[in-house]
């Protein structure tokens, strides 16, 4: 074992052995580190883990051999590696398709924006893996094994910083507010939600319903919360984590999230299995801000004029 280790690290029987081995190792570690069994992300299932680890191994290998192949002037190999890297674009498609297929049978759908965001996140993770393993193997080739490992870790930190997500809690203040009725009309705080015709349902909502109001912190946040895709993502997460008191034939218990047109505040109504305010607020704060929904009016000149 020890002998093999020395052979590998000295690179005698395998030229570029250390670069490839450590590049692969760090790339793999990066993929495992990004494999969160988060409630929001598929895969939270064993099969998802398996397929993503397998693809992660391919990505790590591609990144790890790229630099040694260049050093050996193996242009054919380099060309093939670029071709393989192209394949990872298919990941986005794969994730999108499987999430879309499940969409019809969700009590509360994720919505196209959320699915697109997840698919994009998955694709990006493979590019991070390739980046980390390439940097590591280049570092091992150019400096030393510890130097390469250090650069690899640095590359992972840098990519994590680059792809990090903002959360709803960062852009909006989330407050509890009680659902209340004015005649048949349901309000959360002072924000109109919907008209409920059945007395029995009104009673159930008054007893069991929860409400929250999201107050945007600035103009960009206001536009983000205005996006229907973003709002769908919020209610999907809330019901997926807390459990919803609803079936297909009781649409009045669907969570609804509506905008107050005057202020841009957003009111959320939700029927939980167990009435508990604090976890709901925590979930809302942890919902990611979707890239497609992000308000960026303040980035444009005319937008900045409109700000005050």
């Amino acid at each position: 074992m020890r002998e093999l280790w020395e052979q590998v690290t000295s690179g005698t029987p395998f030229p570029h052995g250390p670069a490839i081995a450590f590049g692969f190792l760090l790339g793999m570690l990066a993929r495992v580190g990004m494999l969160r069994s988060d409630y929001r992300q598929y895969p939270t299932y064993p099969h998802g883990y398996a397929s993503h680890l397998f693809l992660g191994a391919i990505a790590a290998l591609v990144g790890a051999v790229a630099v040694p192949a260049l050093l050996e002037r193996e242009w054919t190999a380099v060309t093939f590696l670029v071709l393989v890297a192209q394949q990872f674009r298919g990941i986005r498609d794969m994730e999108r398709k499987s999430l879309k297929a499940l969409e019809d049978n969700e009590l509360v759908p994720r919505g196209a924006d959320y699915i697109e965001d997840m698919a994009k996140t998955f694709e990006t993770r493979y590019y991070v893996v390739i980046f980390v393993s390439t940097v590591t193997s280049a570092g091992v080739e150019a400096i030393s094994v510890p130097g390469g490992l250090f650069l690899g870790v640095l590359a992972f930190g840098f990519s994590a910083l680059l792809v990090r997500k903002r959360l709803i809690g960062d852009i909006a203040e989330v407050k509890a507010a009680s659902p209340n009725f004015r005649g048949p009309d349901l309000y959360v705080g002072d924000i109109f939600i919907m008209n409920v015709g059945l007395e029995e349902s009104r009673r159930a909502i008054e007893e069991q319903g929860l409400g929250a109001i999201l107050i945007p912190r600035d103009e960009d946040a206001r536009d983000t919360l205005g996006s229907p895709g973003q709002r769908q993502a919020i209610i999907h997460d809330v019901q997926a984590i807390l459990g919803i008191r609803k079936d297909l034939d009781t649409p009045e218990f669907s969570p609804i999230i509506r905008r107050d047109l005057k202020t841009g505040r957003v009111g959320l109504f939700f029927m939980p299995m167990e009435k508990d305010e604090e976890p709901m607020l925590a979930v809302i704060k942890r919902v990611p801000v979707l890239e497609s929904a992000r308000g960026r009016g303040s980035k444009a000149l005319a937008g900045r004029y409109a700000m005050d």
Partner: protein
Amino acid sequence: MPVEVTIQKTVLAIVTDDPRKASGAPTFVVPDESRRQHVATILSRILQGQVHDLGDGMLIVVRH
């Protein structure tokens, strides 16, 4: 392959106390208030639609 068609965002049924108030959709005339709620509940469960109260003794079932 069988194709399922769902009609959404339209009035699927009307439950009212007076037939003169409604037209254009299947209408159920139920003069008694609590009976009206009962009929609307059953319709809502069957059609998987939501019941809205328009006031003045009119309930509609809409699938959103």
